[in-house]
């Protein structure tokens, strides 16, 4: 190649890079350079719109945006008689924990958000909670189990708050549900080696004897495992009739199909994490029938949230996706209500206001504990067609079905 052409090429590449500077204009979607200007009060979040947890991204976004829209429809946040519209800024962390802290910092320092909202799973939420504490900006998160989240800061969170289930409920609800069915009380556990897999799998195993159950086989596989045939055959041989699984969706798809092919039909099959998204049934179809999950109980029946609940369920169906949207809505609403109650965007003032929350939201009657977490009610949900209905504690909608019909040939 001619040297002059090479120079042109080099200049071209540099021009490309600089053009990127012009086009990008510094920062995320609705952001502006520097601290927030004008009337708008901004809140922001780093959420997974692409990557492994991409199925949660649009759901979280919908919940946060709905809360912002509702507050704006009511006239925004009024501070000293001036009405401020609310703006939501979202950045895509590509399900990469390494990007979360950077993006949270960008939201605080570049977009000037008055509050942060969370992501999903401890891995993606804790880095942002760290930034919240370090920068003194309040943050409300959800879709992150309380124990793991609190464990992310052994010294106690100052500015970060979380509303979701306690891991203990994953065990209590599961065994309580099993008590209502007629089983041999033999349990098989399929856990992956991710943080929640280790924690929940360990909890199930530890609590089983006390509740009168016996763990006859336990399989721990790295996330991304695709072959469970040996484990399934071992579970069959051990006579396990209650399956407790906590796996990422791709692994769960493989496990469920392999169970069906190997003619292993337990009385009860729980899939946590994997069927925490309606995609589980969308991908597996009939195979998902009668699979159970432990997730948020049915939303609050308080009259002030009836319209919202009906709208969300109408849009997402009667399943965990609707519950997730409402949980995200609750988190955003609590943050915005905190700013309104504090009457300012000062971090410490808003933080205190959030701490004083004592009100009914779609996720339940929220009052934070000393470690800044709120334990939402959990329930067993079972797949009936493409709906996930609460079967325990019984809410009048559906009855627990055994065995796991979807796994029958």
């Amino acid at each position, binding site marked *: 190649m001619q040297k002059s052409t090479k120079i042109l090429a080099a200049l071209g590449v540099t021009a490309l890079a600089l053009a990127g500077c012009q086009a990008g204009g510094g920062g995320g979607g609705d952001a502006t350079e520097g601290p927030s200007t004008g009337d708008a009060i901004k809140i922001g979040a780093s959420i997974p719109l692409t990557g492994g947890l991409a199925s949660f991204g649009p759901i979280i976004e919908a919940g946060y945006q709905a809360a912002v829209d509702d507050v704006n429809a009511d006239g925004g946040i009024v501070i000293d008689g001036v009405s401020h519209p609310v703006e939501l800024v979202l950045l895509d962390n590509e399900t990469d924990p390494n990007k979360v802290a950077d993006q949270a910092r960008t939201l605080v320092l570049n977009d000037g958000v008055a509050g942060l909202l969370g992501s999903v799973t401890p891995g993606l939420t804790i880095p942002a909670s760290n930034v919240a504490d370090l920068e003194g900006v309040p943050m409300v998160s959800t879709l992150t189990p309380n124990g793991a989240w609190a464990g992310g800061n052994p010294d106690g969170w100052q500015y970060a708050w979380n509303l979701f289930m306690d891991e203990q409920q994953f065990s209590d609800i599961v065994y309580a549900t099993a008590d209502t069915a007629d089983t041999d009380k033999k349990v098989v556990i399929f856990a992956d080696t991710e943080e929640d897999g280790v924690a929940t799998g360990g909890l199930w195993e530890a609590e089983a004897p006390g509740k009168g159950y016996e763990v006859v086989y336990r399989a721990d596989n*790295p996330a991304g495992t695709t072959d469970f*045939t*040996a484990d399934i055959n071992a579970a069959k041989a051990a006579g396990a009739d209650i399956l407790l699984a906590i796996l990422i969706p*791709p692994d769960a798809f*493989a496990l469920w*199909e392999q169970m069906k092919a190997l003619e292993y039909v337990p009385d009860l099959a729980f899939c946590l994490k994997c069927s925490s998204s309606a995609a589980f049934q969308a*991908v597996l179809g009939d*195979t998902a029938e009668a699979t159970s999950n432990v997730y948020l109980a049915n939303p609050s029946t308080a009259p002030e949230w009836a319209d919202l609940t009906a709208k969300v369920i109408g849009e997402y169906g009667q399943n965990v996706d609707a519950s997730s949207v409402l949980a995200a809505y609750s988190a955003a609403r609590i943050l915005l209500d905190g700013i309104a109650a504090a009457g300012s965007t000062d971090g410490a003032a808003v933080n205190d206001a959030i701490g004083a929350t004592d009100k009914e939201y779609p996720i339940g009657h929220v009052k934070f504990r000393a470690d800044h977490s709120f334990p939402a009610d959990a329930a067993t949900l079972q797949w009936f067609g493409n709906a996930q209905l609460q079967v325990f504690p019984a809410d009048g909608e559906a009855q627990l079905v055994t065995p796991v019909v979807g796994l029958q040939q």
Partner: protein
Amino acid sequence: MDLGVVVAGLLTGGLYATIGLGLSLVFGVMKLVNLAHGELIVVGAYASSLVIAWLGLDPFLSLVLVVPVLAALAYPVQRYLLTGLLRRGLEPPLVATFGLSLVISAGLTALAGGDPRKLPSTYSTAGMNLFGQQVRVIDVVGLGIGVALTVLIYLVMRHTRWGAALRAASTDPATAGTMGINVNAVYAITFAASAAIAAIGGVFIGTAYSFTPTSGMGYILIGFTVVVLGGTGSAWGTLIGGLVLGLVQSVGGALLGGQYRDFVIYAFFIVVLAAKPIAEHLLDRARSRPGAIRQTGVRA
């Protein structure tokens, strides 16, 4: 530990062999380290899902369309990008395929989103009995695919004129060129064949398991482990390498605990790599050939 563990390992090994075959082909013929191979596999799966959505075919039937299209797309990539880089040493083509893998996975993410997908089929949940073990039909199909591809490649390499041209071009491209073999075309067709094999693997993975735009990365190391184990450029070696790897993973996981399943593969691979120079040295001594021309991957 029972026969079930062994059978499971062998069946998975069939898939590993398929992955390794594509890599072994391009590495054996033109010393190309194709870091984008995992992405080619995933592209095959996505292309198939597109065809299925459009025509409603069975996933394996969709290969009739997917394989030629992907091979046709791969041909110019080798012909006009990678072949030129091969002359400059080992790194440039490696880096180029690196870049391609980033482009492909980002492109798939943008086009198809990050959700896991499956290729719909009625037989992914069908079971059968093999040596007294209950196994999935699709897993046996996977082993069958690996064996069939191995046989096919072996026959083509050994018993066709085309295979002879390939072997000539890989041994000594310059001389092959003077004998009237169009080395550039040979290289490009080899890469296209590798992409075709990747597509077949992708359709299998899409049917038996699930896939996302970034699942390709996970298969790369397995592929290269198989290639190193099996000896580069040997079809049967690759098959055996794949089966051995599947066995090592399954048995290792059963003995040490499931959470070490992946670690066992990496540790095994490092041991094989570390032992390779020693093994070659011993082989040299055994054949009393002083420091002969060995394939150690050096480009002087």
